[in-house]
């Protein structure tokens, strides 16, 4: 390591009278100098293609593993082309290093496994998807059974965990839900007020805000925040427990991870999501009110207009959506956590999968609700 930053020339190549190649080394061969020497030596070897290679090591001051690698590489190449190779005046320390690294019983690496062909990749992806669907169905069954057990014997539920999770996933989410809900209401009101004003219909901005925030966007916004904030947290938490064998410890104590860990989280999320959705809707309405007020409508007009537009069934529809979103996001977060494999990147992977699957499922559930509400005439 002594001369890592000094780029001195330590290796010079000269041809001798018989067409042999002489490498004279002058200075240290260490991690700092070997790179340059390596390039010079191999270039000379390629150019002159000699029968005989002689390394003159009389002025080699220091040699470490990198230098030994170079001397052995030259030897290997000469052997491969059946040329002769000789190192002259090598000091004892460097010689012992060469003996150590160059022992003939060193084993070469086994080849790395070959990658998959595209057909194999498609097949593998299909099987993985199928297993995932099966695991999801099995988990839904397991979760329902566990929730059933919890409903029959509420004393078995770990209520301390429920309240703790409710605080983390619900109470602590109030500011971010408030901010996004308020901005959503404000922006939507502002964007729609401009074109609607041209038709003299700007009072109906209140209807738009009221219906969309309470029935559709409030629950959706809440679910998306929940997926990003808490679904990922559940996956990371359970994933870390899986990696550190805490889940195995639970199982060997006769405790089901689903009862012990998943049920409290799902109960907490289910209790919190509708409340957060109401909160998001309320803040969205306030955002709308700010815009309406600035357009010149009195506050009371806005309130009466919202009251006339939104029915109790809209409200119940929105809340029932939030209820189901809560179950879906919490359950998929926990499932991805429980599915964590080993390795440093596994927890990160589970967290990503929790958020992505959460968002996909929210979209699907929302679509199903739209169809159901349409046929129920809500």
């Amino acid at each position: 390591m002594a001369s890592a930053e000094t780029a001195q020339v330590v290796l010079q190549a000269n041809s001798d009278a018989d067409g042999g190649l002489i490498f004279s080394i002058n200075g240290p061969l260490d991690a700092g100098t070997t790179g340059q020497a390596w390039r010079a030596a191999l270039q000379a070897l390629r150019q002159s293609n000699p029968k005989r290679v002689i390394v003159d090591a009389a002025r080699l001051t220091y040699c470490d593993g990198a230098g030994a690698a170079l001397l052995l590489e030259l030897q290997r190449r000469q052997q491969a082309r059946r040329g002769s190779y000789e190192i002259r005046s090598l000091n004892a320390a460097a010689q012992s290093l060469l003996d150590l690294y160059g022992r003939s019983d060193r084993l070469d690496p086994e080849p790395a496994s070959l990658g998959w062909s595209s057909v194999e990749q498609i097949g593998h992806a299909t099987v993985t998807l199928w297993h995932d669907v099966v695991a999801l169905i099995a988990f839904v069954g397991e979760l329902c059974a566990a929730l059933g057990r919890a409903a029959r014997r509420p004393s078995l539920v770990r209520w301390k965990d429920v309240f703790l999770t409710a605080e983390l996933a619900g109470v602590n989410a109030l500011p971010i839900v408030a901010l996004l809900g308020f901005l959503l209401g404000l922006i939507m009101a502002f964007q729609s007020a401009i074109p609607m004003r041209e038709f003299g219909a700007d009072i109906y901005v209140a209807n738009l805000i009221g219906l969309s925030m309470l029935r559709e966007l409030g629950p959706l916004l809440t679910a998306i925040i929940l997926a990003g904030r808490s679904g990922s947290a559940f996956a990371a938490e359970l994933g870390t427990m899986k990696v550190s064998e805490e889940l195995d410890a639970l199982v060997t104590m006769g405790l089901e991870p689903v009862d012990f860990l998943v049920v409290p989280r799902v109960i907490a999320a289910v209790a919190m999501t509708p409340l957060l959705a109401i909160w998001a809707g309320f803040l969205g309405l306030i955002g709308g009110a700010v815009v309406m007020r600035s357009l010149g409508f009195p506050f009371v007009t806005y309130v009466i207009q919202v009251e006339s537009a939104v029915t109790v069934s809209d409200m119940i529809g929105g809340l029932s959506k939030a209820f189901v979103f809560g179950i879906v996001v919490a359950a998929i977060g926990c499932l991805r956590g429980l599915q964590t494999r080993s390795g440093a990147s596994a927890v990160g992977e589970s967290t990503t999968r929790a958020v992505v699957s959460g968002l996909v499922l929210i979209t699907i559930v929302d679509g199903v609700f739209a169809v159901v509400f349409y046929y129920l005439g809500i």
Partner: protein
Amino acid sequence: MGLSGRRPIIRVSHLTVGYGDVALLDDLTFDVYPGEVFVILGGSGCGKSTLLKHMIGLYRPMHGSIFIQGRDIAVAEGPARIKILTGIGVMYQQGALFGSMTLLENVRLPLEEYTDMPDEAMDRIALMKLQLVGLGPAANKLPDEISGGMRKRAAIARAMALDPPILFLDEPSAGLDPITSAELDQMIIDLARALRITFVVVTHELASIETIADRVIMLDKRTRGIIAEGDPRELRDHSDNPWVRQFFNREATVQG
């Protein structure tokens, strides 16, 4: 071995380490000499891993200095710090191999970062180091695909990538079966002899200490300092300190 007159390769001087305001170890002074296997030992929680983390520059000490090859790692910044760090290699307790890279790529990494070698040279050197620790055939495997003992050997190969004169090993035998552990000990002895590497080893495995150690220091959490220093075989049989004898003879302290 005669140590008088030799210059130490590591000099720890009046070192106090701890967390926050609480000192875990107070006013430690000791030297490590080139080519020796130096073992830091002590009971659980006595601060030996913390001491190691200070010696490799992960933490800053509360007081004192740690000279590695004449440079104080406790105050070094920028290029001076890199210079010290490329002169040491560290094997962490669990190996700390990068899971997304093969063993060869793990060993190549320091070479890629700190040298200007061509790709082929880095591959050759990395493979050579892996072969030295007996992992030639596994060079293209991922850390997940090999056993715990192999991971530790691969971690030693990575620590040796730049041929540092000093290697720090944190609990090399922890979690290994006696045979694998003995093999690892033998490898440490071989490397110390063949490459004249100075080893600083943190451990509490008695069998391992007696095989590998040239010299030990023993830390104790009651006194927050060194309670014994010297040849482990001497200490086991002739120490006047009851704690030291208790440690070496594996006697339990029964407290009510």
